């Protein structure tokens, strides 16, 4: 129901002389990848439901430069960063929320040195704050008692020490959270980081996402929860490779909450 989504842009806010509470940085995956777009929409539905005053940059948003930087192209990264910072600063952005841990990490940690200082939160942190402030309520619904394992995105967990916000949300859904043998600080990468998403893997015995999916499947989950569009793709591919797509779903936490709330 596209018409139900309210997605105001910064330009619209600016034209009306008002400022939103938070900027939603959608990211390239969230804007263009068919699977990730569903996460974006689910998150927007929650924002709409909670009456959060937010805006997106829309066509003024551009890649943060993360994949370029991790691939070694510092020059391209900084060109992207400086351009984005000019836009963000022109709109006097104070707070940014994003559903992509790569965008989250880059804007939070690498933009300040180039003149971009914002409060940056991952969408799971933002959702948890909404919950704590009573702006959304969550009941398990169809997730009640389900076996769910959470795959830590490297750039959210190890890179920035955020482990509990996504887990707290899963617990709030009355689901049974089961940890994989490597989790949190020792969580295994999905195989997409460091620009691997955009290239063929080097020669080896197996692909990283298969190894990680095997770890996830060991917990006998009904749902593999993710907090990153790239992890989501890698784990979905892994589940398909193992021919488990009928019994195991890969879902972003925002999608789980939107589904539970029947949004």
């Amino acid at each position, binding site marked *: 129901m*596209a018409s139900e989504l309210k997605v105001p842009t910064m330009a619209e806010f600016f034209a009306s002389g008002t400022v939103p509470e938070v900027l939603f940085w*959608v990211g390239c995956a969230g804007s*263009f990848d068919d699977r990730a777009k569903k996460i974006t929409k689910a998150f927007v539905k929650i924002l709409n439901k909670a009456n959060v005053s937010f805006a997106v940059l829309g066509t003024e948003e551009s890649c943060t430069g993360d994949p370029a930087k991790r*691939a070694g*192209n510092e020059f391209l990264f900084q060109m992207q960063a400086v351009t984005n910072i000019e836009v963000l600063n022109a709109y006097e952005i104070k707070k940014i929320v994003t559903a992509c841990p790569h965008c989250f990490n880059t804007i939070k940690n690498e933009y300040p040195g180039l003149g971009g200082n914002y409060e940056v939160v991952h969408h799971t942190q933002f959702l948890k704050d909404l919950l704590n402030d009573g702006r959304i309520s969550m009941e398990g619904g169809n997730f009640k008692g389900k076996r769910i394992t959470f795959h830590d995105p490297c750039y959210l967990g190890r890179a920035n020490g955020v482990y509990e916000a996504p887990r707290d949300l899963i617990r709030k859904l009355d689901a049974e959270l089961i940890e994989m043998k490597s989790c949190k600080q020792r969580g295994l990468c999905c195989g997409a*980081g460091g620009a691997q998403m955009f290239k063929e893997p080097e020669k080896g015995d197996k692909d990283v996402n298969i190894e990680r999916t095997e770890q996830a499947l060991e917990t006998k989950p009904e749902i593999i929860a993710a907090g990153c569009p790239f992890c989501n793709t890698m784990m979905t591919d892994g589940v398909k490779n193992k021919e488990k797509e009928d019994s195991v779903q890969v879902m972003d936490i925002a999608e789980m909450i939107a589904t539970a709330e029947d949004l």
Partner: protein
Amino acid sequence: MQYLPNIIFVVLLIVGIGFFVKNVSRLKRNIFLGKEASLTYNKPQRWKNMAKIALGQSKMVVRPIAGALHIIVYVGFVIINIEVLEIILDGIFGTHRMFAVLGPIYDFLIGSFEVLALLVIIAVVVFWIRRNVIKLKRFFKPEMEGWPKKDGNLILYIELVLMFLFLTMNGADYQLQQMGAEHYAAAGSFPISSFIAPLFEGMSISTLVLIERTAWWLHIAGILFFLNYLYYSKHLHILLAFPNTYYGKLTPKGQFRNLQSVTDEVKMMMDPDADPYAEPAEDAAVPDKFGASDVQDLSWVQLLNAYTCTECGRCTSECPANQTGKKLSPRKIMMDTRDRLEEVGKNIDANKGEFKDDGKQLLNDYITPEELWACTSCNACVEACPISIDPLSIIMDMRQYLVMEESAAPSDLNNMMGNIENNGAPWPFNQMDRLNWSKES
């Protein structure tokens, strides 16, 4: 002639320590071949990290068995070194068990040294079994073949020999004390070596003195040998873990350094008043090389990291690329960096303080692009290192060289970067379509 042993001892001590000091200065020279890195901010946090991670071994216990064994050996060596102080003073002044005046405190000290020595022996034996009988996977990666494997075992043998010499010395001493031998006044308690003493029963005082003295001399000579072995082995971590944890990264693990040289260029490009055709100033410095292709391009902290690595392989065993059979091993990145740095250092020594181009570099001759491109930048290696080594930063610096100096990225990545450059996304989608999702059902 009665001072001959004292003189021999002092000479041994001076030679042993002198040689060590020489190696330390070589080590320092090599480390500072690296680039400047200002890491003096936030000293309280740095001291805290050093106290917690190096002194407190906090990250060792992430793996409980290896962690507990390591703590035994660590505590054992640190505390038994109090005894070494006594040995050195005895050696210089020709006294015997000089600290015996401490009375009951001395008894307690010697007693606890002995218990620790036994525990160290047990721990070292278990370490040996893990390496040679159980054959733990992380000790059998390709980079561990040859010298690194031998080195690991040799260190265990030296530690074992030192502990046995210590206990033999005490056991003979205890027996001599029982026999009321001259110069061997009753001092110390010997909870462990008193079990060795029965082996000495029936021996004459002169034989026992010979055994005691031999063990004493070999023990101190062994310690001086071990001290000098450090530089040639992976074992430097017992010293360098302290500065290395002090200078460890304080920022979030996901925060990679922004290159200032690039920032300067980007700022100039964005400056509408800049003259793009301006000649560089006469006195302008040669622009920095982007990224790293050899050890001199790395920072001194990265080089300190390389010397600090003790090849435990926790990084490699946590690495997703390595776990799935790719060539990348973070431990090998550190070992290669150290080996190349040693090669460069020897080159400088051989050429009167000047580095002569040897046609080699860290990239390709040691670390291949295949290894570098297998990294997912997931920080598992950084998290796994018990002493704050950062292999990922070296991988990233070398990728920068490959991409910005050599334009040698894999073609898929070139496509991705081309897309970002042209339409602001890693895929070929138009920036004007960025909000289309909001209108799709």
